[in-house]
């Protein structure tokens, strides 16, 4: 392709002429510091990433307090904090602990899980668009859930189980279909897109089979919502999160090395296929658990890691900052949904879809200009 090389050289000279963009790896490596202890241990610390993580956690907490306080029964932010610390009145205690806290916890955990899963897959596919909702897992989970709703009129538990099974089966299927002496990033993405197209057709078929009541319930589920979540959704999600986060953290370093390409990673002593398999499994499980709890909320997995990357100015999607960003993003979107649409409540998935769609367009344009996608 003569033309493509020509245009890419053109763009690279153009970017060189301008001052270097802030997100370039050069500017970030300078800020990383190594902390050495007396016992010969050393830890690399990126102060900017740590600061961003703390700030985003603060935003997520503030959004939680505001969301817990708002509703038909308003509670002042100070009282919310007091109640959370166990010093509230009985009425406040009931409203917060039984009604609103579970919803917020589901939102936080779902946002963090989706963002973690997204940053794992974006690293693995080495593509900012290779997130799990683009490559079919969301659709797979939706097939499972829709099957439970439409074919069996299942309870909420059955729907969550269906979503979990659907997401996992899709993940395994995409991995196996993309396998050909190893899985390459681009093949994973394209196979995922193909699988997603088939599963979308299946979802549409299931919708036509349903009665109007079931169809409404199914569409609501497919949009993703935090309405009516209680402690039964929190515990399984929390368990999955607590179990999977250490695994992800343990493999975070091999993941960074994998971004340099398979050959370089082999040469640096990373067990490439094992690291990839473990991370994919963790990513799919996180995605499936989040989807089972709140439905396939669009675009959080796609946009949170990229936004976090821009804030931390690190070369790849950082895991901790991404997770904090995902949680903050989802709760802020939920708050926007509550404020903007008032009593005729739209689920949070609609807001993330619209926000994410706009963000995606911007991403595609800028990344293309920089010649990165």
């Amino acid at each position, binding site marked *: *392709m*003569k*033309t*493509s090389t020509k*245009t*890419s050289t053109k763009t690279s000279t153009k970017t060189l002429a301008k001052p270097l963009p802030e997100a370039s790896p050069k500017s970030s490596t300078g800020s990383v510091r190594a902390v050495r202890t007396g016992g010969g241990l050393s830890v690399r610390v990126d102060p900017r990433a740590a600061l961003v993580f703390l700030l985003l956690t603060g935003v997520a907490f503030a959004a939680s307090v505001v969301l817990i306080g708002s509703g038909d029964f308003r509670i002042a932010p100070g009282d919310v904090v007091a109640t959370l610390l166990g010093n509230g009145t009985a009425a406040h205690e009931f409203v917060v602990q039984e009604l609103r806290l579970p919803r917020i916890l589901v939102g936080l955990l779902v946002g963090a899980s989706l963002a973690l899963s997204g940053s794992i897959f974006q690293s693995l596919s080495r*593509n900012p*668009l*290779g997130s799990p*909702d*683009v490559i079919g897992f969301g659709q797979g989970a939706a097939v499972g859930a829709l099957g439970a709703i439409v074919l069996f009129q299942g309870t909420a538990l059955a729907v969550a189980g269906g979503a979990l099974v659907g997401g996992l089966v899709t993940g395994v299927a995409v991995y196996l*279909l*993309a396998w*050909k002496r190893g899985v390459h990033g*681009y*093949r994973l*993405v*394209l*196979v995922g*897109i*193909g*699988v*997603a*197209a*088939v599963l*979308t*057709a*299946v979802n*549409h*078929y299931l*919708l*036509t089979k*349903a009665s*109007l009541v079931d*169809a*409404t319930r199914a*569409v*609501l589920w*497919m*949009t993703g919502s935090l309405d009516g979540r209680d402690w039964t959704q929190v515990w399984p999600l929390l368990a999955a999160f607590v179990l999977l986060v250490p695994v992800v953290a343990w493999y975070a370093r091999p993941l960074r090395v994998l971004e340099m390409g398979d050959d370089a990673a082999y040469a640096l002593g990373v067990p490439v296929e094992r690291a990839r398999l473990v991370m994919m499994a963790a990513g799919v499980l996180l995605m499936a658990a989040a989807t089972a709890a709140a439905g396939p909320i*669009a*675009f959080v997995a796609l946009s949170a890691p990229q936004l976090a990357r821009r804030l931390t100015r690190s070369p790849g999607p950082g895991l901790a900052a991404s997770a904090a960003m995902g949680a903050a993003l989802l709760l802020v979107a939920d708050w926007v949904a509550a404020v903007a649409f008032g009593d*005729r409540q*739209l*689920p949070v*998935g*609609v807001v993330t*879809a*619209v926000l*994410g*769609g706009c963000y*995606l*367009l911007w991403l*595609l*344009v800028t990344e*293309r200009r920089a010649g990165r*996608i």
Partner: protein
Amino acid sequence: MPDGVPAQPPVPRSRHVVRIAGLLASVVLLVLVCVASIAFGAKSMPLSDVWHGLFDSDGVGNDVIVREVRVPRTLLGLLAGAALGLAGAVMQALTRNPLAEPGLLGVNAGASAAVVSAISFLGVTSLTGYVWFAFLGAAVVSALVYVLGGSRAANPVRLALAGTAATAALYGYINAVQLLDSAALDKLRFWTVGSLASADMETIAKVAPFIGVGVVLALLLGRPLNALEMGDDTARALGANLGRTRVLSMVCVTLLCGAATAACGPIVFVGLMIPHLVRAITGPDMRWIMPYAAVLAPVLLLGADVIGRLVTRPAELQVGIVTALIGGPVFIQLVRRKRMAKL
């Protein structure tokens, strides 16, 4: 074409003979599928009744089924199939990308989103109204995806991702509209699946002119697209007008996809599979690929429709689902091929 064998300049005479014979055989196949589409359905009837209904109808019983249901359905399948197959062929040549397909690149989703808006916000209920919105949506999204996918420097992954991202965003919007308006949901969930079941003569008369223009345009574009496939520099050196070819190709894709989507809803993978199948027979010459695609794509669509009617009788599997189930594995096989790595 990236994954075809480049044709040797003096095409041997025998190749022409094979191509013409193949085209004739394809036409025969198409006739057979049309007969099957008219003869088989939810209600099984003897072939004599089908014959009677077609040529000697007295307007009762099985004659009505043949005349009012199966003939329009077959005609719509013919038109929509040809439209989707040609649109796929034009798109693959235009983007020089073997995975380009109106369904995957979000064109159908664009048409759907526009139709959904029309139904829900503007209260449009008739197909005449739909068609224009479908065109608008298809045109906007195809241009957007083409630009976002990197226009001339597009590679398969980038283009497919741009299309998928656009589709995902548009489906988010469609879901939101459906949630706020359950009457629209009731109408739309049958439309978004992609089906030939609601065909009637009125629909066909509405979309036929658009598809007709699109088909003629696609057939005429064979030669210019041949030049385009050699790469921009070579094509320009040969005196091809690249800008005009690109614009006409986009108009052609929009006409074909918009009309087909308005009439039957989004149908994926037909436009992807057919050009690959055809290229295996004809080689990379677009002048031959176009007529073959126009004949073989309806064979696939009508075949899928007949299968969908027969496997779950008396209910039916919509044609969009059957083509997705057939097309998905074909797509994955294409992706797994070794040569994809170089595109």
